[in-house]
C-alpha cells in the first residue's frame, strides 16, 4: 500500500526513530511501512492519522480497493 508517511514526517522534521517513539513501534516498522513493504493494522493506521491530524485516506492510498463499488444505502 502506498502512503505519504515520509512526506508527512519530513514536513515535521521528524526522523523515523522520532515517529517510532511517538507511536511506540520499532524504527524498522516505520521504515517498512514507508517503503510499502508492510501494511499497518487499522489501530496503527488510526494512530498515524491522529498524530498527523489528517484523515487516514489522505495518508494511505488503497490502490487495490479502487475497483470495489460502495454498496447502496
Amino acid at each position, binding site marked *: 500500500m502506498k502512503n505519504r508517511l515520509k512526506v508527512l514526517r519530513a514536513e515535521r522534521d521528524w526522523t523515523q526513530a522520532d515517529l517510532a517513539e511517538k507511536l511506540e513501534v*520499532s524504527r*524498522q516498522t516505520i521504515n517498512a511501512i514507508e517503503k510499502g513493504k508492510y501494511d499497518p493494522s487499522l489501530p496503527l493506521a488510526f494512530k498515524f492519522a491522529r498524530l498527523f491530524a489528517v484523515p487516514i485516506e489522505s495518508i494511505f492510498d488503497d490502490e487495490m480497493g479502487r475497483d470495489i463499488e460502495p454498496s447502496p444505502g
Partner: protein
Amino acid sequence: MKSIFNALCSKGLPTRDLKNANRVNLLAVLWALSLLIGSLLSQYYSLSALVISLAFIIHTLIGIAMAFAFKRFLGQLDEMERKIQLDALALAVGVTIISFSSYSILAKNGILPELNSAYLIALMALTYIAGIVSGRLRYS
C-alpha cells in the same frame, strides 16, 4: 551479509523487546542444559526415583517459565515484529510436522533408524531462526 547478521542479532529492536528476548534465550539455554544433563546422567548412572523426579520437575518448570516468557515477549512486541515471529513459528511447526511424518514412513519400513526427538527440537529451532532472519530481511 551484514543485513543477515543484523537480522540474526535482532538489531534495532527496542530495549524492552531485547530484554524480553534475552530472558527467553536464557531460559531456552537453561531448558536445553537441564535436558542434556538429565540425559547424560541417565546414560552413565543408574538414577534413583528421586533424582529422576527432580530432573523431570526442573526441566518441566524451566520449560513452563520459558513458554510464559515467550508469551510475554510476543505480547509486548510491536505488530510487525510479532508478525515476523508468528510467521517463523508457523514455518517451524509446519516444517517439523512434515519432516517428522515423512521420516516416520522411512523409519517404519526400516530404511532409516528411529528418530531421536532431540533432532526434531533442533530442526524446529533452526527453522524458526531461518524464519526470523527471512522475515526481518523481507521487511527491511
